[in-house]
């Protein structure tokens, strides 16, 4: 038995099919992965993301400390705003990707992956310097994501005291729910407008229920991990353990845009060099031309030569075809190039396409 979120019983009641994910028992789907995917694209979907980790970083040296660890500039980060970044090891490989929310100049909130939570915390702890207090809040934090074009209207019904029109993308605010403090951020991992809600585990069940109830007229449905994965793949968001790992740096992963700090940080010399000179391999987007579903690990061929492998693949319910992220040698293919993906010993034609497969809709 894996770890269970405070919403585990709700998932069972809703007919969720439970699987192991990073040591957690979570629903992979409730009714149909494709239906859930399309519900988020057209209406709204509700996700239990309580497995993810949350850390608090407090103290007057907090920003300086975080800036020494991530390749992303803090110049655009302000109170009440978050940004995407990553933690890198000494070689520039990615320890984890994360969201950094700035509450105030000496109070930050980090959201990290479930599977890397312990590793991240150890790394952050080993790097502590100055007046900084690091705390793991994961066990006292539940997280519910509401995503899709109708998510704002539904959430506004539940939180009438918050003006969501004023909550811009990547910004967050606080409110109360059943007497408990809740953090609402205008963020997500689906390619749709949506919100991520952070609340204590005791109150999560009541919040889940009221969102489903108020969402009913908007066709909100609960969504599992399978649709979360296909949604993020269409939107071209990287997933740790797939596109990202300790042997891939952010430039190779197609995340050069988060390598923009002019401070000194872990592996800054390496990352600046690889950004200036270009990486030897890079994540590209592939679209299958006819039939077949690319899966992780499948080889990618160009004119008979092996140029790399699929890091994430699957079926796109919007494009109605197989799509993939692949890590390939640079300087060989560009957007529009024809490649083959080896699916069960057969070469299946695919094209290198511009990222993303699905543009952010919000």
């Amino acid at each position, binding site marked *: 038995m894996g770890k269970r979120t405070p919403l585990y019983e709700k998932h069972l009641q809703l007919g969720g099919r439970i699987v192991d994910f990073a040591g957690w028992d979570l629903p992979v789907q409730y009714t149909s*992965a494709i239906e859930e995917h399309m519900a988020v694209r057209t209406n709204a979907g509700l996700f239990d993301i309580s497995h993810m980790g949350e850390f608090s970083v407090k103290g007057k040296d907090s920003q300086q400390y975080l800036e020494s660890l991530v390749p992303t500039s803090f110049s655009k980060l302000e109170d009440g705003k978050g940004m995407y970044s990553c933690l890198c090891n000494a070689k520039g490989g990615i320890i984890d990707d994360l969201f950094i929310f700035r509450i105030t100049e000496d109070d930050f909130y980090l959201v990290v992956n479930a599977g890397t939570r312990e590793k991240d915390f150890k790394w952050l702890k080993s790097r502590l310097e100055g007046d900084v207090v690091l705390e793991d809040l994961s066990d006292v934090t539940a997280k519910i994501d509401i995503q899709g074009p109708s998510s704002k209207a539904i959430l506004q019904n539940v939180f009438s005291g918050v003006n969501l029109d004023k909550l811009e993308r990547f910004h967050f605010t606080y409110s109360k729910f059943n007497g408990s403090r809740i953090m609402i951020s205008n963020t997500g991992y689906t390619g749709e407008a949506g919100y991520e809600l952070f609340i204590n585990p005791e109150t999560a069940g009541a919040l889940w229920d009221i969102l489903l109830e108020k969402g009913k007229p908007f066709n909100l449905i609960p969504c599992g991990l*399978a649709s979360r994965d296909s949604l993020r793949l269409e939107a071209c968001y990287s997933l740790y353990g797939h596109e990202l790992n300790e042997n891939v740096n952010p430039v190779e992963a197609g995340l050069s845009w988060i390598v923009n700090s002019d401070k000194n940080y872990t592996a800054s010399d390496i990352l600046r060099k690889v950004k200036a000179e270009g990486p030897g391999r890079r994540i590209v987007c592939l679209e299958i031309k006819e039939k077949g579903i690319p899966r992780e690990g499948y080889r990618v061929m160009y004119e008979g030569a092996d140029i790399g492998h699929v890091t994430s693949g699957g*079926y796109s319910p919007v494009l109605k075809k197989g799509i993939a992220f692949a890590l390939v040698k640079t300087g060989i293919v560009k957007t529009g190039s024809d490649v083959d993906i080896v699916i069960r010993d057969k070469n299946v034609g695919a094209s290198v396409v511009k990222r993303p497969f699905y543009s952010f809709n919000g």
Partner: protein
Amino acid sequence: MDANKGREVKEGFRYTDKHEWIKPDGKGNALCGISDFAQNSLGDIVYVELSASPGSTISAGDVIAVVESAKAASDVYSPVSGKVLELNSAIEDAPETVNKSPYDDGWFIKLELSDTAELEKLMTPAQYTDFLAAGG
């Protein structure tokens, strides 16, 4: 929730422990497919590739198709030996048929049985129902 969802077992069929079915017509031929349990476990089927070729002779346990669901690719095995008479190419064009109608429109291949005695080695509907109840 419907407690019987993904657990329908039909009479007149025989079943394998890998959740394929075979439906003999009593004249030496049979249709093969995957069970309701199999289609439900796979989830949304998005692609079917029938790999058996018409006219070829196959053995029990040979791969006759690959089914891709939203989650993973799975092989489908022939429950018995025989000569491949026909492929249901309709499921290649509309793979969701396998989800909607696993025992009828969603059949995979038609076989001429090499040895009808092979059928006796497969599970009866009652045995398959027990097999599912025991956790599949």
